[in-house]
């Protein structure tokens, strides 16, 4: 009997060095262009080049080894760490002046109290054509573009918080706490949190998420002045921080992203606009290897025994390598591309179109902070 997917490349199969180099170049060129445009305005283009080289290197490693998730995770975690170094530590040291992020007083999500300032920036963006200036329309357009290009993959390639959760979840070899028993039962909590936050923020005209939950506030400016409320807000912030930093180490799951992040639920909803999907083979044996491997608790075993990919899947690719039958693959709306021959044929698959799209966009977006973080480190080491 013919084995399934014999006509398609296996999930972990690599390419020749030449094909991998071509793929790396395809990622490197746009990454360099965007990094130069975004970061090069304020700091040396050398840092933009370094970041584009890192993105290109990641692309080469993915194409050469055929393994998506491990190299993606490295890129993603470094990007998130760079955000932490530059933006969050910059907030503490007020060292944001020569940076693309200098216009935001605290955090781009927490701008409700600065809405008028925000509108003024949008006006400036409109009249000057400087779309890098942050504003509701610029951000809306950026979000739409990212959603159409990446969809739910935002959470596994570009989110500056998700990289921390993802990187930490990969550190332990085995989970100390198994949460499989109840994880699926509260998997809709981020969606509930999103609806609750939208309603309450509207009702009270307050950035409720930032006040009560954001794990990286690192500032008391938003907190309530009243004694026990302030204590409760600090306690919840610390709980969220523990969910982001400690829980992944204990559970080997992206705990904060899976159960607390409202934007993940938002992106899961709108991510359906994006054509890339993760599909399971029809003859899935129901061994549950993918269920255990999924860091997002986004796969469950359907009644027939087949793996069922939930809407919360962010296409990280972790399950691709976990499936013993290589029965999971990237598709476009559930369909494969026709197989192409030749030395570069394997690159003409959904997998590499998806990786190109995600990695290029992730590299371009993280150019907002990653080159600057590199500059910060260089300055810190060599003065």
């Amino acid at each position, binding site marked *: 009997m013919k084995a399934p997917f014999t006509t398609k490349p296996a999930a972990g199969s690599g390419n020749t060095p030449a094909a991998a180099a071509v793929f790396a170049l395809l990622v490197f060129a746009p990454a360099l262009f965007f990094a130069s445009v975004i970061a090069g305005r304020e700091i040396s283009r050398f840092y933009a080049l370094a970041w584009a080289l890192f993105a290109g290197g990641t692309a080469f490693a993915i194409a050469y080894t055929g393994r998506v998730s491990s190299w993606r995770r490295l890129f993603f975690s470094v990007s998130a760490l760079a955000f932490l170094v530059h933006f969050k530590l910059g907030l503490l040291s007020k060292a944001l002046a020569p940076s693309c992020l200098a216009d935001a007083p605290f955090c781009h999500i927490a701008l409700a109290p600065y809405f008028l300032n925000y509108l003024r920036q949008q006006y400036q963006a409109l009249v000057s054509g400087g779309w890098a200036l942050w504003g509701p329309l610029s951000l809306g357009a950026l979000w739409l573009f990212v959603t159409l290009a990446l969809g739910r993959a935002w959470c596994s390639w570009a989110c500056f918080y998700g990289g921390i959760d993802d990187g930490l979840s990969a550190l332990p070899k085995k989970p100390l706490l198994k949460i499989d028993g*109840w994880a699926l*039962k509260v998997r809709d909590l981020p969606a509930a949190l999103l*609806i*609750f936050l939208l*309603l*309450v923020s509207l009702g009270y005209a307050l950035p409720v998420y930032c006040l009560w939950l954001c794990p990286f506030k690192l500032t008391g400016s938003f907190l309530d002045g009243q004694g*026990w409320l302030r204590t409760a807000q600090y306690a919840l912030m610390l709980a969220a921080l523990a969910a982001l930093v400690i829980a992944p180490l204990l559970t080997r799951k992206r705990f904060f992203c899976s159960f607390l992040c409202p934007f993940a639920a938002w992106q899961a909803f709108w991510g359906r606009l994006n054509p890339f999907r993760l599909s399971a083979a029809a003859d899935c044996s129901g061994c549950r290897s993918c269920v255990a491997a999924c860091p997002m608790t986004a796969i469950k075993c359907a009644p027939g025994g087949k793996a069922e990919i939930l809407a919360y899947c962010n296409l990280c690719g972790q399950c691709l390598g976990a499936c013993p039958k290589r029965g999971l693959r990237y598709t476009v709306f559930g369909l494969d591309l026709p197989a192409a021959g030749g030395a570069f044929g394997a690159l003409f698959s959904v997998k590499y179109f998806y990786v190109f799209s995600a990695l290029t966009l992730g590299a371009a977006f993280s150019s907002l902070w990653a080159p600057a973080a590199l500059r910060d480190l260089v300055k810190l080491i060599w003065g």
Partner: protein
Amino acid sequence: MPALLSEGFLLGLSTGFYCLASCLPLLAPYLLAEGSSAWKFNFGIFLQFLAGRFAAYMLFALLASLAGQAGRYALPAWALPLCMAGCGLLMVFLAAARVRGEAAPCLLKRDINPYFKRLPLALGFLTGINICPPFAAGFIRLLELADIMKGFSYFGGFFVATSLFISPVLLGTPWIGRRANEIGRLTLLLAGLWYLALGLNGLIALY
């Protein structure tokens, strides 16, 4: 009397967005948790909620008019936080108990007596006696009028106008499925805890 009705209506019309903002975090999760794809069923829930609010408004009109007649011109300070805490408790209870539907998270798996299926009425009532600024403005007018029938008329108009702002919430309900019910139940739990915390905070601040 019609003049007072229209005065209350205009007050409601001018401040309705505030009512929408304060009622939506209660009503929307409840509809999401207990609603179905049948529009009529959701409309029934909405009507019960409105009936609860109406009863609360009329009770409030009665009490305010009586207080005006007795020359007492102050609301007890504990009334608002107590109502808010009561509302929160009720929402937490609703989320924790199974009112409708079969699949509930195991942590929240408890069935309740059918008697409690009238809970939208109670929820509406508790929302209705939450004293928001427009409501307080109406209260002052009622103290001044000190007439029960005029009070009913004034708050009747206020009720109709504020209900207009709340009614669009029904537009989103025909898409409610079982998955949305579960999300709604969790939202109800979160919103209930939020109101409970706010209410308790208000009570603690008093004493």
